[in-house]
């Protein structure tokens, strides 16, 4: 049943190639269907699905647990919103394919499959990032992604050669038992690939050119959806299957990335690029927290991830459609923008505050002062430019003339979703426990390799 999440969008994508218009209409329906299936299957979490009835060791398997469920729901909901607000039919088919691949990426329990899905996501991302005639940025992304993905492939094959199976659970168990050092090497290879998608600095240098090109679609899809799915994969690989920390150099790179990308954002004179750098910084913060491998920190990192994705969705949608806006003529949009950006910084009563609050609390409980200070310093820098851009747009100098009136505000549907997201941020800000309970659960499951393994071994067995 869960297989439909991958099969249906993929099949429909290829079926509608001749009928682009139809694809645009089909996209929301498909995503909605995905959501329905998901929620229908919610009682059945904690299952594996073996395709073609091969035992898990040899065959292709999907793994569906709470973590996957929540990530899938989030990704599909974001997709639903995106599909509703996008009017550009050029990207409907790539979006369908991407949806399939994202679902696949989250569900799969097989190294090589995850590589394939990752590549499909990458290719569709390249296509989507050509929005607004941005072929050059897209090409840059392609070179980055292309080189990086090779490491993942090597990693996957490496796991196979050492462990004798491509199944994540089995091969990491076997290697973990026989030679944990090898497991770590493979993880380093995987991580390098994922860091490109996770926008950590030396690897995320493509981001400003791709996000900052003025498109509304690209940064939303890449920033809010793809990154989230990648975080899932990254946390699975680095938390569930490995018991050890990645080499410290990763941690330091990510820390540097947080501060440096904030500085990059501070310098920018273009709002799009500022937001691009900001999303690099926040994603780096999430990665840094994941790298600490502490359950409480990881839980808050996920909290931070979800609220951040939502906030970035609002910011990029507003920027993509309006550019540097004059909010006096678009008050609702302006309020949504301000709420989201304040949430991004972590101003109290917005969701982002609790993200940073729990993060700091967890970090201090673990006595991890370095990351805490880095987070505080980066927040300070972020605060400066976010304030600047908010004020710039609320107190814009130019008075709008009558001719411009049509495009001074978002269209209704977008405005609705933007406002809705901002309100969700506010509600989570007022009742953070709603989300925190979930992320605590997720973090607990992420760390529970025993459970993951038991599900497999109970089912398949060697």
């Amino acid at each position, binding site marked *: 049943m869960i297989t439909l999440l991958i099969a249906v969008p993929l099949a429909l994508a290829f079926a509608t190639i001749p009928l682009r218009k139809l694809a645009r209409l089909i996209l929301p329906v498909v995503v909605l269907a995905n959501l329905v299936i998901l929620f229908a299957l919610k009682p059945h979490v904690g299952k594996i699905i073996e395709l073609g009835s091969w035992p898990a060791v040899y065959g292709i398997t999907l793994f569906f647990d709470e973590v996957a469920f929540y990530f899938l729901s989030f990704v599909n909901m974001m997709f639903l919103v995106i599909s509703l607000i996008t009017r550009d039919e050029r990207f409907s088919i790539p979006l369908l394919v991407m949806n399939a691949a994202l679902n696949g990426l989250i569900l799969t329990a097989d190294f090589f499959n995850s590589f394939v899905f990752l590549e499909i996501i990458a290719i569709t991302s390249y296509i989507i990032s050509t929005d607004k005639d941005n072929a050059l940025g897209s*090409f*840059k992304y392609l*070179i*980055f992604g292309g*080189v*990086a993905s090779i490491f993942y492939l090597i990693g996957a094959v490496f796991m196979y050669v050492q462990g004798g199976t491509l199944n994540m659970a089995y091969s990491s168990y076997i290697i973990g038992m026989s030679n944990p050092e090898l497991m770590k090497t493979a993880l*380093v290879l995987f991580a*390098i690939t994922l860091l490109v998608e996770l926008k950590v*600095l*030396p*690897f995320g*240098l*493509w981001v*400003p*050119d791709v996000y900052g090109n003025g498109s509304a679609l690209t940064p939303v899809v890449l920033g809010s959806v793809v990154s989230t799915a990648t975080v899932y994969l990254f946390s699975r690989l680095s938390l569930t299957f490995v018991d050890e920390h990645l*080499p410290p*150099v*990763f941690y*330091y*790179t990510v820390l540097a990335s947080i501060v*440096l*990308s904030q*500085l*990059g*954002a*501070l*310098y*920018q004179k273009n709002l799009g*690029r500022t937001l691009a*750098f900001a999303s690099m910084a926040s994603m780096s913060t999430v990665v840094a927290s994941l790298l600490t491998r502490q359950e409480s920190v990881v839980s808050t990192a996920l909290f931070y991830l979800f609220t951040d994705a939502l906030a970035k969705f609002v910011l990029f949608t507003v920027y993509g459609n309006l550019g540097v806006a004059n909010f*006096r003529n678009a008050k609702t949009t302006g309020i949504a923008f301000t709420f989201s950006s*304040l949430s991004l910084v972590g*101003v*109290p*009563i917005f969701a982002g*505050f609790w993200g940073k*609050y729990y993060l*700091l*609390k967890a*970090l*201090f*409980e673990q*006595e991890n*002062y370095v990351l*805490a*200070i880095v987070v*505080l310093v980066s*927040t*300070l*820098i972020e*605060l*400066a430019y976010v*304030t*600047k851009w*908010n*004020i*710039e747009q*609320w*107190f814009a*100098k130019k008075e709008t003339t009558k001719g411009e009136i049509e495009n001074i505000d978002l269209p209704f549907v977008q405005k609705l979703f933007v406002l809705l997201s901002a309100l969700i941020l506010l509600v989570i800000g007022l009742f953070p426990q709603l989300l925190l309970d979930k992320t605590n659960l997720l973090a607990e499951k992420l760390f529970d390799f025993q459970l993951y393994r038991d599900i497999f071994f109970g089912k398949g067995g060697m």
Partner: protein
Amino acid sequence: MQNILLVAIIGSVAGYLLSLFYRRLGPIILLLISLYAFAMLWEIPSNTAENFLGYDVLYLTTLGKYFALLSLIVFSAYAIFNIVWIETLKTPHAFNALSILTLAGTLGVFFTTNLVVLYIFWELTVFASLFIVPMSKSEAKRAAVWYVTITAIGSFAFLFATFLLYSKFYTFDLVEISRNLSQLPKPTIWLVVCSMLTAGIAKSGVFPLHVWLRNVHGKAPDTFSAVLSGQLVKMGSYLIALLLSIFPVTTLFPHFYGGVNILSYILIWLGNVSILVGTLMAIKQNDMKMLIAFSTVANSGYILIGLALLDQVGFAGGLFHVFNHAIAATMIFLSFAAVVYRTGTTKIDELGGLIHRMPVTFITYLVGIISLAGIPPTSGFISKWMIFQSLVSRGMFVTEIFVFVGSIGSFLYVFRPLAGVFLGQLKSKYKDVREVPIIMQIPMILLVLVTVFFGVFPGQVLEFIVGAQKEFGIDAFQYEGTKLITSMGYWDTWIVFVMFAVGFLIAAVLYLITPKGKKIPLEDQYTSGEFLHNFDLYHYASRFYAFLEREYGDHPSLENLYASLVNALKSLGKGIDYLVSRTASAYVFWLGVILLLLWKGW
């Protein structure tokens, strides 16, 4: 307390909606909320704990009550003044809503000893006020960014300390923390206390984090400057007072000089430098609002010195100075707002002679500066006297230099707007200026009365101060009625006031029995025997203290230092941007390098 906060928060939404119909309703709602809160709060005894939205976080200390009541006075005056003044704003709705929200936030700060709740309300205040700042002048946009950034330096340091304490004690309650604080190792205590104080220092505009005040106070909407200087800055002083008194500072830190511990001594030095910087910079300003902004820096220094002394007299003096400066700054900024309302400029040398057109505004300013400069019989003198007494009794002579320079210097700078704006030749441009409407006059007159009243009968204020001192185990300041007593002697505000009246009476009688003078126009002047065709220029206002200014004209500037620091950070950012703008080839190279690094280990 919960009710007050909820009313204020809901009121901010109501203020927004109602001002959509009629913009003057917003200030009226603010006024009503302030009055309601004042009446409610007056009845609540101190040391009351209350729930807020089901969390047991509100706790009213005497100190908090004192500051909250003071804030409400400032906000009430501000609200009344705004009823008319609001007409000049382009965005009255947001202004009203955010003003009320600022009140809510600031009251929240005073109502809690829970560090996180305090932080939340603190940030609420900052962000509510942040968006008010650029509402009238577009130059204020940059100022607002500085405001929020520098305040955030403080509040993040505070947050850091909060979590550090949490990781040690697993509580956010300040009272409980202070009980166990001495268990921590020394460096940690230093780190925690200094980080927390940073928030207060940044907010109250004490050196070295004072740089935001000039532009924010100077360019914010005119009436809001009154709240900024009279109220929001006091939030910082509140935090300093709370932390210094609730932590057992005197036992935690070793004694240094004259019965003052080392931490207090450092704070006193910050206060000293603030006074010096604030005074000298204020003397230089040609913009009257910026001038008072720097005076706020100097007065925050006074408050800090008083509070850091942490004794019977000095601490009380610091707290009393909070009251005085809040009221005085509000009066001064409101009178400036009145001037700007009629003339549209804040430049001292563009104005002149307004006393002949706006007498009530002038009186407000006059009493304001008398209090600010600490001249009896206004309340401003009492606090200065207390601080002086404490300093002298400890023999802190170096600090005295700064305090005296600040005190005499304040005569210099407050006289500059007095002479340039209100006195001197009336500019022909402003011949037809009228006094501001009666509604704007009301708060000004009320504040004048408040200042003089508490200058003569300081009992009520002292009661709060003594309460706060007792609460934190400091020896209480002694007073009997209007007689203020210290170990080095006492004085009686009432007798001084009476003698002042007697002296005045004698002078008035002398004046009245002597022949009456003949009224002649301002243009009828000694002109060194020259024929003057333009009396607009016969007015000494620009570069009033030029002979003094040039003595320290090429002083080092902290503002420039910070600006260049930001530029340095930005050029780092530019470096990152350069990396981005290079094409892919370079990056893969980097990728390789990183990979190698990984393999070699760290």
